[in-house]
């Protein structure tokens, strides 16, 4: 019987000219905690590094493209991820006193833990919104930053970031999960398929036997989220959540546990088995250790497995 616990962290090292981005991410992520947002454990200013919980299944982008020959995500998992991201967005958008907009929502910023539970990450361009002249909440910029295919066309044109910008990106993500296709012109493809009653032909077959009623519902929701005009987009709280919440419940009933944990990290220990105080101490220790030994590789992911008890011994000595 082993006496030690193993925990893992993920260290994101940023370019030296992104100090502002780093401090902003820390500012936002220390203010918010949600089961579907990445958990920021610490930050190191000297090397511009952020330390998160390690999420062993990588990004949704990697899993959708089956990078490393991982099995395709089942429709049950995809449905759950849609619901999880929806809940995270509603949480951010209803943040008080100022709403938070993610601003760069895309599959590569959605990370998956050992059980394929999704966590929204990369708050590099996230912003708090302030009231504008028209009493709607916006963040104004002359230089919109975002990712092609996922970014709100109105934001790219006018530099006005609002909650609706995240809703657009969310719509594109739903369409990708449904079809498994590249996001280029995905809205038009799905729209054409719906008009011609051919939706079944463009659904990603690798997701399994996705109930067609759900596919239709999700496609309709996604199209409303990804409407070109911001004011015509769906409202996450009133239009989207009631539908996906019901779907999530149904999907979890029929989900097969073995498929959802097929690429599970065997060393994972439930976090509530670990003492929060000792975890923080271990982390601080490891952080300073690597900083002083210049172990960080710039813009490279460093994965660190910590032997908890060994690290505690070092701390005590």
């Amino acid at each position, binding site marked *: *019987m*082993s*006496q030690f616990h193993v925990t893992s962290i993920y260290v994101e090292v940023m370019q030296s000219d992104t100090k502002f981005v780093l401090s902003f991410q820390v500012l936002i992520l220390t203010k918010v905690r949600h089961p579907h947002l990445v958990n920021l454990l610490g930050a190191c200013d000297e090397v511009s590094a952020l330390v998160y919980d390690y999420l062993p299944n990588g990004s949704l982008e990697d899993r959708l493209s089956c990078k490393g020959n991982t099995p395709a995500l089942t429709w049950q998992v995809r449905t759950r991820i849609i619901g999880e991201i929806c809940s995270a967005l509603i949480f951010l958008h209803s943040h008080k006193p100022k709403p938070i907009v993610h601003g760069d929502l895309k599959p590569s910023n959605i990370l998956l833990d050992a059980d394929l539970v999704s966590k929204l990450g990369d708050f590099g361009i996230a912003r708090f919104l302030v009231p504008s002249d028209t009493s709607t909440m916006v963040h104004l910029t002359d230089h919109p930053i975002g990712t092609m295919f996922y970014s709100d066309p109105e934001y790219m044109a006018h530099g006005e970031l609002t909650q609706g910008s995240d809703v657009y990106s969310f719509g594109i993500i739903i369409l990708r999960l449904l079809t498994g296709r590249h996001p280029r012109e995905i809205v038009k493809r799905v729209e054409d398929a719906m008009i011609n009653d051919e939706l079944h032909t463009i659904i990603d077959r690798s997701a399994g036997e996705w109930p067609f009623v759900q596919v239709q519902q999700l496609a309709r929701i996604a199209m409303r989220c990804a409407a070109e005009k911001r004011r015509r987009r769906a409202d996450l709280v009133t239009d989207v959540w009631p539908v996906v919440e019901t779907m999530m419940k149904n999907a979890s009933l029929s989900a097969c546990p073995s498929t959802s944990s097929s690429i599970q990290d*065997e060393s994972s*220990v*439930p976090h*509530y*088995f*670990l*003492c*929060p*105080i*000792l975890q*923080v*101490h271990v982390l601080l220790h490891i952080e300073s250790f690597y900083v002083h030994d210049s172990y960080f590789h710039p813009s490279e992911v460093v994965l660190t497995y910590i032997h908890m008890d060994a690290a505690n011994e070092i701390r005590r000595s």
Partner: protein
Amino acid sequence: MKNPHIAADGFTYEAEAIEEWLEAHDTSPMTNLPLRNCVTIPNSALRLVIQEHLQRGP
């Protein structure tokens, strides 16, 4: 955790760690809010679950 104890903030800690913390603080290590009291109670349910987990796993 070998000896999980629950503090007044409702979170569970390693007994040794929370006692060391309470020697220098009267706040919760998780929330930083003042603790109602500095009493910690053994969390026997969690202790059993952890022991079962350790016996099952590698």
